[in-house]
């Protein structure tokens, strides 16, 4: 079976069955998921959907907690700061 991947800001990241986006990213050594609106890092903090510190933008879902969302093959996941940069380029 070939390794399944998600696309993190365009880069393929391998995941295992049962991986959330957060667990796949941390296994790949990625602890910072971009920046929050406050410019503090977006990252896993509570791990159970309470703190909203791990929000990312997920293809087909929208903004959601990386720690609660299971990986789906070929799914594109972006950091919110990445998103904001592209979307607010006009101002």
């Amino acid at each position, binding site marked *: 079976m070939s390794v399944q991947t998600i696309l993190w800001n365009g880069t393929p990241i391998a995941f295992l069955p049962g991986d959330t986006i957060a667990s796949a990213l941390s296994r790949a050594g990625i602890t*910072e998921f971009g920046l929050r609106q406050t410019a503090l*890092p977006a*990252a*896993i*903090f*509570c791990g159970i*959907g309470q703190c909203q*510190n791990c929000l990312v933008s997920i293809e087909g879902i929208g903004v959601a907690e990386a720690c609660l*969302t299971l990986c789906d093959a070929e799914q594109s996941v972006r950091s919110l700061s990445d998103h904001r940069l592209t979307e607010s380029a006009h101002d």
Partner: protein
Amino acid sequence: MIDTRPLIVGAGPAGLRAAITLSDAGLHPVLVDHAPGIGGAVYANLRAQPNLTPKLTREARILRQDFDRVRPRVDLRLSTAFAAFDQTGTALLTGQAGMMFKPRAVIFATGARERIQPRPGWTLAGVSSAGALQIALKTTGTLPLGRLLLAGTGPLLYAIAAQMVAADRPPVAVIETGNPLRHPLMALRLPARVLTEATRYIGQLLLAGVPILSGTDLTRIETRNGALIAHTSRQGRWAEISVDHIGLHDGLARNDFGISAEMTGQTPVFQAGDCRSVLGRWAAEEDGKRAAEQVLHALNATPGRAAIAPDQRFIKTQTLLAKLFARAPALAAPELPDDTVICRCENRSLGDLKQALQTASEQTQTTARTLRLTERFGMGPCQGRQCLDWVAALTPDTTSFADLRGNRWPIKPVRVRDILDAPDFTADPSHQDLK
């Protein structure tokens, strides 16, 4: 047409046991959890691939067997959050299996939240709750790469440390503000199953050579050459520990934000498990059963039980544990610099809080309302779950935790699209319970 389905929010031990009890009585409960699997935090390995994580404990196995038995009667909605009620008794569920419906009764079994003391550097990536590391271990059998450190206080730290040892990833150390091992005689008064578990964890840590630095504070964290540097303090002696991940934990509190019964109109509402009183998984399961019996009573389906207080044994255990883990007397009160972030969501610091109190006292009175509306404490997406304990502790003369927290829907942020997408079953419930 009246919807006869009760709603249970949270599929941890309390919620699962409530669902089992209601199903056995012939009802068809709707069970929602925002996680992608059942088990809650404590039994998160119920949702793991069986080959990945350590064997299930006996009680987790029994819980799953019982739930499997009633599974056809439960409308289980995972990756779905309970968001809010309106005054007509309509519940809004959002996410993968979102909907609007009018439950006949509601049981909130939303569990606990970890209390984490603010410290300089606690907002850095790689610093998380200790529980977050445990969830990774329980659901995937793996931990983030690199050196791990656990710090704070409370029994959960040792459980997690021992599980890390078992996964061949022992933490560099456990930093503990209390002196729990100094009171063996007090510890002997713990119930046998608690004591057995604790002894096993401590044994595993000692055997693996994991240092337990008790009576020690993790005072601040910084980054240096890509690593996290933890600064510790013990009776005036300072040390630095270089690691890659830090798990913090300073105890547990009820995760009961926004779920007061006054806000649900006519619908009977109950709380079960840690969100009612933080007494651990054994008590939570019993409490889930108790809440289900109260629902049955309220719906006149069976002669149920009146509201009862949690079992005294569980309360005694928690009181004793709190004493065992009391902060070491020799340890100075933590002195936080003014730029310490208190509210992570809105990036509000201790200095901001102090200044707000000062300017307000010169002009008008400071209230919970001004601290929220003007100063933004507790107003971010976590809704104060992380900061309000500390804001309340830092402003004892000004406001209380209950005032700061208030009671508001939704209980977590909701995407507008989810509201628009949620099918509406309030007029015509699709599932009829054939009681």
